């Protein structure tokens, strides 16, 4: 049997739960319509690699291979070469002739960023990494130098 107190308690609780849902109904939806709207990411969010340039157009990378050594999964492959003094690729003596990142191996730990002495390799904000073939996961130097603008807004930390 139900006591009078049970009935009042139950009524109060149902009214309370319905008030909560009514409050939710009157709040604007929190949904981000992702492909149409950009997603907010934190500034230190780590996604696809980028190779940065100096403002005069020279590559930052000096081909030291420290990122390759620091990489815990062996995702990075660098082959260095001597710069031609007449047409240098980078301000140093050497530059990276081949710079490849295998995204299937990469765990986005950011150790390459930390290891780089000239801040050439950074993990950008572009997280849309899906491709139609396995070859697409092997980023060449050309792709790393010209990253696409990511579909994100950077939020305050």
């Amino acid at each position, binding site marked *: 049997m139900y006591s009078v107190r049970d009935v009042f308690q139950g009524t109060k609780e149902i009214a309370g*739960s*319905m008030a*909560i*849902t*009514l409050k*939710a109904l009157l*709040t604007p*939806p929190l*949904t981000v*319509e992702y492909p149409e709207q950009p997603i907010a990411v934190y500034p230190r969010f780590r996604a696809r690699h980028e190779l940065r340039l100096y403002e005069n157009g020279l590559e930052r990378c000096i081909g030291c291979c420290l990122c390759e050594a620091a990489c815990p999964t062996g995702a990075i492959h660098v082959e260095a070469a001597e710069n031609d003094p007449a047409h240098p690729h980078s301000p140093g003596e050497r530059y990276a002739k081949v710079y490849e990142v295998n995204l299937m191996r990469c765990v986005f730990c950011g150790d390459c960023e930390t290891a780089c002495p000239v801040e050439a390799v950074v993990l950008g904000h572009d997280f849309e990494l899906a491709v139609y073939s396995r070859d697409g996961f092997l980023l060449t130097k050309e792709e790393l130098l010209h990253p696409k603008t990511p579909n994100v807004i950077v939020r305050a930390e």
Partner: protein
Amino acid sequence: MDWLNLIILPGIKSIVLVLALLGGFAYLTWVERKLIGRFQMRIGPNRAWPFGLGHPIADALKMVFKEEYVPSHVDKALYILAPAMAIVPALVMFAVIPVGPQLNLFGKEIPLVVANVNIGVLWVLAISSVGVYGIILGGWASNNKYSLLGALRTSAQMLSYELPMGVLLIAALLIFGSLNLNEIVTPTIPVPWYMRAWLLLAFPFYFITMLAETSRKPFDFPETENELVAGFQTEYGGIKFALFYMTEYLHILAASGLAVTLFFGGWRGPFVEQIPILGPLYFVGKILALVFLFIWASASVPRPRYDQLLNFCWTFLFPLSLVYMVITAIVVVMTQSG
């Protein structure tokens, strides 16, 4: 024989009513998904057409073009018959509910109700009980323990909650003094305001029985996804599943229609005497308000345990409705003799 009044007019009215109900069902699913979404701070369906208005049409097309698959272990005849047995009562239930006042069309007075039956309330109760057969047969013919358990639960739940619902209806009928739903909307002897207020007092309890009778959340025991897969619908797919799904929503519409007629004055509203076409609009508006209440309850209240459901009905709702009916009877007798 009066062909026009006996065959043609009711035929046209039935077709219009069935089309309106089926269209109403399709967009009721849209309203529900949209509202549930907003209750959970989501947007809800919004891919097909603006505001997701194309989703019901896409769903209907998908259901129609699905493969007609009959599992090998079912009782084939009953398995195919069951969805039809469920949907037909749900559709004809609405026939006695007046949706508006008399309409003057082409010099003829046309009452906006398919069948002006003397025992309208009894008709609705009887037909809604027949609707249980479709569900039980569906569960039995599926030859699946989850289906059968779902069907058994449904029958126990519907039969139990029919009692308090019936008793509350008796109280309402005592107040109106008629079983004819047209006379309940436009009573020949005006019902005093305090009796209407007393009747409204019973509405929360009547609404609980409505939730249980239509097996809507939080009383969706026939389906209980986490215990019974999908209850009696487990073995159904394609258009047969769609028919069961339709039945559920048509029950909501019919139950709301009956409640609007009994508790909230049916199609009546301001200026309805001057402009009769407003009647159906008021009626639809009131039904939508009740549907909102249905969806609100389903978004807010969790499902109780099955024994709690029956316990609540037999030890609380049923005695309470009996007491309510006795008090109503005493008051009606005293005011009429005095």
